[in-house]
């Protein structure tokens, strides 16, 4: 449904990070190197032109845990970090940052929302790249860490879950 679009260097992507991968040091928060282990198709992120920070958390809250048809992901277990596209493209070894929108139907199945912002950062499993990404997050923590009161979404996510899949996130995202 959504065409792939070129992502300009000036934009950013959001990356959600499970709490087990977040280091808290001197009031800074940043993902450790383990967080940047890529999957076979790359690291999933969300293009900020197509999604808001709030919607990143809602999307997590409307997605089932892997291989489950009942339990939703606990969106409270995540923190979100923001990375400049230009930075990612400038790291030696990172092959591409490509828009990769996900459309699974109108509506898509319960627990599998569509995602017009989905983007893949492709790179090999490489210690130098992972260390570079983690260190950037550490050194620029005030810019990369995206604080958000996730509890403010509790009621909204609960209401959306009850309506699934009849919600914009499982359709065309027109709110």
């Amino acid at each position, binding site marked *: 449904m959504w065409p792939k679009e070129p992502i300009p260097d000036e934009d950013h992507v959001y990356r959600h990070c*499970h709490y*087990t*991968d977040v*280091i808290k040091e001197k009031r800074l928060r940043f993902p*450790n*190197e*383990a967080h940047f*282990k890529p*999957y076979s198709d790359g690291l999933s992120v969300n293009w900020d032109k197509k999604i808001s920070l709030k919607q990143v958390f809602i999307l*997590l809250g409307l997605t089932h*845990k*892997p*291989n489950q048809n009942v339990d939703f*992901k*606990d969106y409270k*277990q*995540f923190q979100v970090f923001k990375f400049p596209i230009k930075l990612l493209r400038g790291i030696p070894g990172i092959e591409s940052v490509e828009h990769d929108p996900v459309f699974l139907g109108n509506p898509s199945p319960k627990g599998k929302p569509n995602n017009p912002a989905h983007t893949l950062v492709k790179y090999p*499993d*490489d*210690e*130098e790249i*992972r*260390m570079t990404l*983690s*260190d950037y997050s550490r050194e620029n923590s005030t810019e990369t860490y995206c604080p958000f009161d996730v509890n403010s979404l509790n009621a909204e996510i609960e209401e959306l879950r009850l309506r699934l899949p009849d919600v914009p996130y499982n359709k065309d995202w027109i709110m």
Partner: protein
Amino acid sequence: MATPVYCEPYSQPLPSGYWISLSHGITQQNYNPVKDKIKVISGKSLPSGIHLQSHRKYEEFEGIRTDIVIELVDEHINISEPFGRLAKVIEQSKFFLDLEPGWDEENALTIDPEVWKTAIKFLIHYSIDIFKNIDRLIEEPEISPCKDGTIDLSWRTSRSRMLINFRKSEDGIRAYYYGDFYNNKQPIKGWVNTNTVDIYLSMWMRNLAV
């Protein structure tokens, strides 16, 4: 050399490859068979900071004290007090073995006990090797589980940084590493097998000493 006097629990030769630190001041006279766990060979005291690699070398000295036992799935390693903080960090990483599939709310795999054990033994062996050579401890690393079931060790000191990932390959578990003096200054990168201490890597890792 005096006739060895064997004492429990080391009445049998130590397995080759075990690294054990010697403590200062243990003699045949002051040896405590319950507390000290030493094998007495002569009456001489030992200088502190001497570390031994094998049973053969071990016999050249008169005493051994091992204070800390680290349980590693199906075996254990004895280390001594200078490595107490390292033992604590290792102990804190044991919960990785209890992580269930999808522990990151996504597709994370369970941590392979063999990979965890190999990473910990690597850490202990290199830490002791470096201490033996320069009489200084390396900093304790951050030990992290990775979503592909592998283990990371990472260090950041005031002047250097290093990341080592332990993962299975066709010929066993390898340690893939990257280190530098920040900003890619004098980088080191590659992999080593984990069944021996690699001299080149161990020498570089001296830069992680406190």
